[in-house]
């Protein structure tokens, strides 16, 4: 068997073995070829442009806070403040993990490596590739930038701490990288099957209700202050919090740096050692998950083959009326109920409202303009649906061909999808409205009217833009996994710009009316926009068949492709 690598030597199969190095080189080469080949098409060029633009947007988001963190670190280190590194590293940790868990787009998502299973790729190589792909995630890059800023701040103030700080922060960054990958990998696993999905949903609801119940208790004793900070006994709660936080990675990393500042290297090393234990723990959990994946784990929900006599079990109709529109809605509803990642996308904005709503209540923010919480909540409700609305054919996979073969016009199919997404939006908007009203109270009638008028504009505007993007910039969606989706950046960027534009129209109308003290004026103006948006939507819908006909080949290619 000339040319085939020998199998028995374990050293040849390590993640740094000659075989592994050849595999890394092959993957790097193939990624480069895919990238360069992609540039041959207009779509590939648009995708590259979108990636560059996204990079600058994320850089802009990251640079401001990094300057603040750097200055904070400098100030803390120059004055020997124990609190400063702890606060900064907790901010870094929470932001990193929060975005990784709740905004997969920002977390960069996990790479799809299952196609490597057919090759002799060792588990070590598999793990290295998984982490390397994770480095390209925006949340990782932002986290790295912030950690560097903190390190620079401390090192400028105390140059003698440079090596120690660099070591500690490197370990802390590695922990964050591992943890974010681990969280996403496990969430994906739990969402893949119905039973675990139900358990996770139950836990989520329990926690959400718990947060709601706990918040008033905090604020009741806080006299309007935020979580007790700045109350009459300011050191009481922080001292308890301080002791608790010290045993967690950000606290350990901060204490390690502080001990080094105080010339207690042994204590600092002990903290670093404990941080290392956390790294091993997070790494262990990730290895546990990836080990199953690398063995070709099947997360299918298929029941075992029954040995009983054939039973004529017909799936009950979810919608008991016939016709193509109902058929499309029923199919999409079944898809949604069977897709953990899609449910996850819908739930994420609700989690945000629960978390931020809880944080905002009773804080100084409430004294600014909480009457606008309802319209802001409605904007938020759209976010969970953006990927569905702006890529409404992406989940069809091979089934996209069926739509082209069937005698049902694509206009009818798209109309069915729009109707389904409208129902989902109303459901999400109702839940968010209930949360907003529960947390901030009922807004004034003029704000309610303006919000409804804005919705009448925003819904058709979103669907019109969404239909155009779905037909012209589609990308295949993996229904079972939270995965990196090729071609999603261009669509994602334009979807976000669309949302921003729709939001800007609402803000541009509502803000001046509010400043002038005439919120009621906003309603007729927004209704006029709604008429225009409805007209545009109907025009787009009327042209769907023509657009699909001219884009049929690329739609098929993009949505049916396997990787």
């Amino acid at each position, binding site marked *: *068997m*000339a040319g085939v690598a020998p199998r028995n030597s374990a050293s040849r199969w390590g993640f740094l073995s000659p075989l592994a190095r050849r595999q890394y080189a092959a993957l790097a080469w193939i990624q480069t070829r895919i990238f360069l080949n992609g540039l041959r098409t207009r779509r590939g060029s648009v995708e590259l442009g979108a990636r560059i633009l996204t990079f600058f947007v994320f850089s802009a988001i990251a640079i401001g806070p990094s300057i603040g963190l750097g200055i904070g670190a400098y100030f803390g280190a120059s004055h020997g403040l124990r609190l400063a590194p702890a606060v900064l590293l907790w901010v870094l940790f929470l932001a990193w993990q929060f975005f990784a868990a709740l905004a997969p787009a920002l977390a960069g998502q996990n790479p799809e490596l299952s196609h490597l299973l057919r090759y002799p790729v060792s588990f070590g190589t598999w793990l290295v590739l998984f982490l390397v792909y994770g480095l390209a995630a925006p949340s990782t890059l932002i986290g790295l930038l912030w950690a560097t800023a903190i390190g620079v701040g401390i090192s400028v103030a105390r140059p003698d701490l440079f090596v120690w700080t660099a070591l500690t922060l490197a370990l802390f960054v590695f922990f964050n990288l591992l943890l974010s990958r681990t969280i996403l990998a496990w969430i994906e696993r739990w969402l893949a099957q119905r039973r675990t999905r139900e358990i996770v949903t139950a836990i989520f609801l329990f926690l959400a209700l718990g947060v709601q119940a706990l918040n008033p208790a905090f604020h009741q004793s806080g006299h309007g202050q935020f979580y007790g900070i700045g109350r009459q006994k300011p050191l009481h709660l922080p001292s308890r919090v301080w002791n608790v936080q010290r045993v967690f990675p950000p606290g350990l990393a901060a204490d390690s740096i502080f001990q080094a500042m105080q010339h207690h290297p042994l204590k600092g090393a002990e903290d670093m050692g404990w941080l290392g234990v956390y790294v091993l723990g997070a790494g262990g959990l990730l290895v546990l998950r990836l080990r199953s994946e690398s063995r070709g784990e099947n997360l*299918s*929900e*298929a*029941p075992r*083959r*029954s040995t009983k006599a*054939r*039973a*004529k*079990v*017909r*799936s009950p*109709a979810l919608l008991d009326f*016939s*016709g*193509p529109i*109902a*058929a499309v809605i*029923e*199919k999409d509803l*079944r*898809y949604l109920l*069977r*897709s953990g990642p899609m449910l996850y996308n819908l739930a994420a904005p609700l989690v945000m409202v629960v978390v931020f709503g809880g944080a905002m209540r009773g804080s100084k923010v409430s004294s600014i303009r909480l009457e606008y919480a309802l319209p802001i909540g409605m904007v938020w409700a759209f976010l969970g649906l953006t990927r569905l609305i702006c890529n409404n054919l992406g*989940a*069809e*996979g*091979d*089934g*996209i*061909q*069926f739509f*082209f*073969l*069937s*005698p*049902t*016009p694509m206009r009818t199919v798209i109309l069915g999808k729009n109707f389904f997404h409208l129902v989902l939006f109303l459901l999400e908007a109702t839940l968010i409205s209930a949360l907003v009203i529960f947390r901030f109270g009922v807004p004034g009638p003029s704000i309610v009217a303006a919000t409804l008028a804005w919705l009448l504009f925003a819904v058709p505007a979103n669907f019109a833009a969404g239909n155009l993007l779905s037909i012209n910039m589609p990308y295949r969606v993996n*229904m079972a996994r939270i995965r990196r989706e090729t071609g999603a950046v261009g669509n994602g960027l334009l979807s976000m710009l669309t949302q921003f534009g729709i939001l800007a129209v609402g803000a541009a109308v509502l803000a001046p009316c509010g400043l002038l003290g005439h919120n009621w004026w906003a309603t007729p103006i927004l209704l006029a926009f709604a008429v225009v948006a409805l007209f545009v939507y109907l025009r787009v819908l009327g042209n769907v068949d023509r657009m699909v*006909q001219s884009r*049929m*080949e690329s739609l*098929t290619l993009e949505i*049916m492709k396997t990787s």
Partner: protein
Amino acid sequence: MDSPAIAIRDLTRRFGTFTAVDNVTLNVAAGQFFGFLGPNGAGKSTTIKMMTGLLAPTSGHIELLGLDFATHPLEIKRQIGVVPEGLALFGRLTASEYLRFVGRMYGLDRNTTNSRTEELLDFMNLADEPKKLVTDFSHGMQKKLALAAAVIHGPRILFLDEPFEGVDAIAAGTLKAMLQRMTERGATIFLTSHVLEIVERLCSHVAIIHQGRLVANGSLDELRAGVAASLSGPQPEEKLTLEELFLRIVSGAGSETPEEAVQELSWLA
């Protein structure tokens, strides 16, 4: 004379500078079991895609059941069934849900859709696992489901792109019987397959496409006569099989013979 069920004229499809299908003209009579053959990349799937509305032709004319595809696409789609190369299945539905979805998209009423779904699932031996998602089916099961979906509305023309690939022998026998019964009742079947024994057994007429051009077209006897006429030496004593006909026609059109090809790959054990 009745108008043909399928009539294509000067059908051409170009991808940039590459011509995948080059001026193909073809008629298929109603009730015919028609085999459309060709080596890999010859243009078979591209031709079927154009005839079923999955791909727009660069030029040429397609008429099915007397209707022009360019002007009556939806009327034609109501009367044809297709098992395309990609099978066109929705992976996250069960077989029953998928067939009921397809029935409704073809405008069947609920009762008809439900009863046909059950009949087809029974016939295709797919009723055993009602909760299994299509994505978890084996390739053969997916093929059978795609075929069930293609016939649920009772099409007058059935286009099948490699329908027997991955299907076990028992199921293939059942499917062949079903397809033959359909042609006996007047349906037209347009089939592509690399399994030439099956084509020889099922099809009354065959066309061969090579490098985008139609190089042979007719009944098996007509093809044999054509090959015999092209031979300069002694005529074969036995009837040529379709495989022999195919190889002679395609190699005559410029392809490498298996004997020539096997001289390469000398390093392979």
